[in-house]
């Protein structure tokens, strides 16, 4: 049986994994990953934890956590990073410091988001103009929500 995985949501490389039972040993499987062949006993799963949801697989083994992605399912949007203009975490917009049409310098704080009593500043990654403001003070937003559209000064 074949499966196909990506090592991250944005990874272009798809890794094929082929798994076959070992007929002479019940509960054992031969797994081919690229050039490597492994023989895994089913009992290994009992020492691990496994969860799959929406094409994302979470695994814990020997205290380490791993995430990988089912390449047969559609890609999830890339997770947002601190410093971009998406909410890096679920939370509440407590300050909006810019207005639509405003010119801002790289490093300027545009918004302040708060969750679990911690403030997170949403910072302009480059000089530009706020072309759209997609949230208001007091809004509750989920992780990954686009908050501001900033166009680089040259493009406007």
């Amino acid at each position, binding site marked *: 049986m074949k499966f196909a*995985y990506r*090592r991250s949501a944005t990874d272009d490389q798809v890794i094929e994994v082929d*798994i076959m039972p070992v007929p002479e040993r019940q509960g054992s*499987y031969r797994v081919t990953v690229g050039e490597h062949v492994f023989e895994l006993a*089913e009992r290994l799963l009992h020492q691990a934890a496994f*969860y799959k*949801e929406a094409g994302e697989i979470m695994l814990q083994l020997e205290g380490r956590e*791993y995430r990988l992605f089912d390449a047969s399912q559609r890609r999830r949007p890339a997770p947002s990073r601190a410093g971009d203009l998406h909410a890096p975490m679920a939370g509440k917009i407590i300050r909006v410091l810019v207005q639509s049409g405003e010119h801002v310098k790289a490093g300027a704080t545009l918004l302040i988001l708060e969750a679990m*009593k911690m403030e*997170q500043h949403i910072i302009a990654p480059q000089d530009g103009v706020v072309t759209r403001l997609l949230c208001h003070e007091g809004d509750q937003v989920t992780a990954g929500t686009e908050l501001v559209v900033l166009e680089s000064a040259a493009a406007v």
Partner: protein
Amino acid sequence: MQKLLVANRGEIAVRIIRAARVNVPPSLWERVLLQGEGPGRMQKLLVANRGEIAVRIIRAARELGLRTVAVYSEADRDAPHTHLADEAYLLGPPEPSQSYLDSARLLDIAHASGADAVHPGYGFLAENAAFAEDCRRAGLLYVGPSVEAIQQMGSKILSKQIAERAGVPVVPSYHAPDAATLVQEGPAAAAHLGYPVLVKASAGGGGKGMRIVERPTDLLPALEAGAREAQQAFGDATLMLEKYIPNPRHIEVQVLGDHLGQRVHLGERECSIQRRHQKIVEETPAPAVAPALRQRLTSAALRLAAAVQYTNAGTVEFLVGAEGDFYFLEVNTRLQVEHPITELVTGIDIVHQQLRIARGEPLAFAQEHVQQRGHAIECRLYAEDPARGFLPATGRIQVLREPHGPGRRIDSGIALHQEITPYYDPILAKLITYGATRQEALLRMQALLREYTILGVTTNRQFLLDVMTSAAFAAGETDTAFLNRHFANWQPAAEVPDEILALAALGELVQRRVPFPAAPTATAFVAPEAGLTTPWQRYDGWRIGGQT
């Protein structure tokens, strides 16, 4: 028998008087009852908190035969604390200001439920003198110190004055009467203290509103942001400036005091490993505290407690410099998050003591009965991402395995399928281990962190595991700069190895082959596309004795 004449002297007289005092002479009871407190008055306890600490307090109250009342917000309808108590009442919407911080609503619930006592836990209203006062006015026993002690110790200014008068050294600082004066006078005051200075909220702890300012140009922005955070967290935007002591150790002393004026300390805890000024690892005894320093710290803590006639449980926090110099930091007038490590090495249940003291019982033991044995470590499991600046994380817990065993204690406030929301402090559980030696406690902690399994919400578990397996921690080099020095750019294991891809395939194959189980209750909450994972959760259940 009402009154005992001890016809002897010396140590045996002391011994007998102490034993007799467990049954307090009637004159002392009268004094206690005049304050409106006495045994038999506490029957039903309202726990004005959530999460692991609410669970902890409900259990302790039950052990003492009390009935318990939980309160919950709309976000916590299915939280473990809500279901554990004998009764549970809805507070309101998830926002803390409309739920766990709504003192009027809490008092209404206390009245409606017939509760006669309130335990505030930590955080929320736990150090709010007005709430304690409201409880007492409403005829409720408040499980904590007196309103006066909360006020005196809750004010960073007053608490330091009292500490100085009690002969306890303090860190030099500057306080302004209001925000405008602070902005005006702050630059000069900071220059006088000498940079770096620390901007802190006058009203509370936990690192909220706190900032280190290295340069004069950074002072005013820090004051603005600090005031906003302080207002948000404590409802009071007042800030103060303090001389910053670089790389100190953070060491605190647990004290208990009863209404008869007896006070004991339960030794120290080291809490130096902090991120964003919030503790993540604590241990006792402190690796760097020699008996002579311990003696000085604990007697300073007791002097301060005596100065405010402190009752119930409290924690006196100190900064300890490299030379063994120490400075009073603050008193937490409440149960401390890290209280379990003290319980493990002393055998004293601090929450039991809190409840007994609040209902007027005298301490049943004296200082010389408090013996520390062995070593204990606590790691705080937070819903946060250490690889992204410890940003809070949210999500639904899809796999949960909390492996108990000898020398392990897990104070948990979470359950399988629970949604972790952005509204509250990100603490999920406290992992605590005990050992005859530090080494043994540490080995148990490493194993516990490896075995503890939580998937579905990002936690700091792997980060804690790396801290606990580091040579620096093993060596006891735990000052407050520890994480910056050793773990500033921490990332989890980079690549997913081929072995894990193979294991994933095995997981999917076995999952497809195993038929759906009959109707385990756990699946009721699982999203449709996640339904296939049920056999895995069932396997988990077998491994850990049905804990899922």
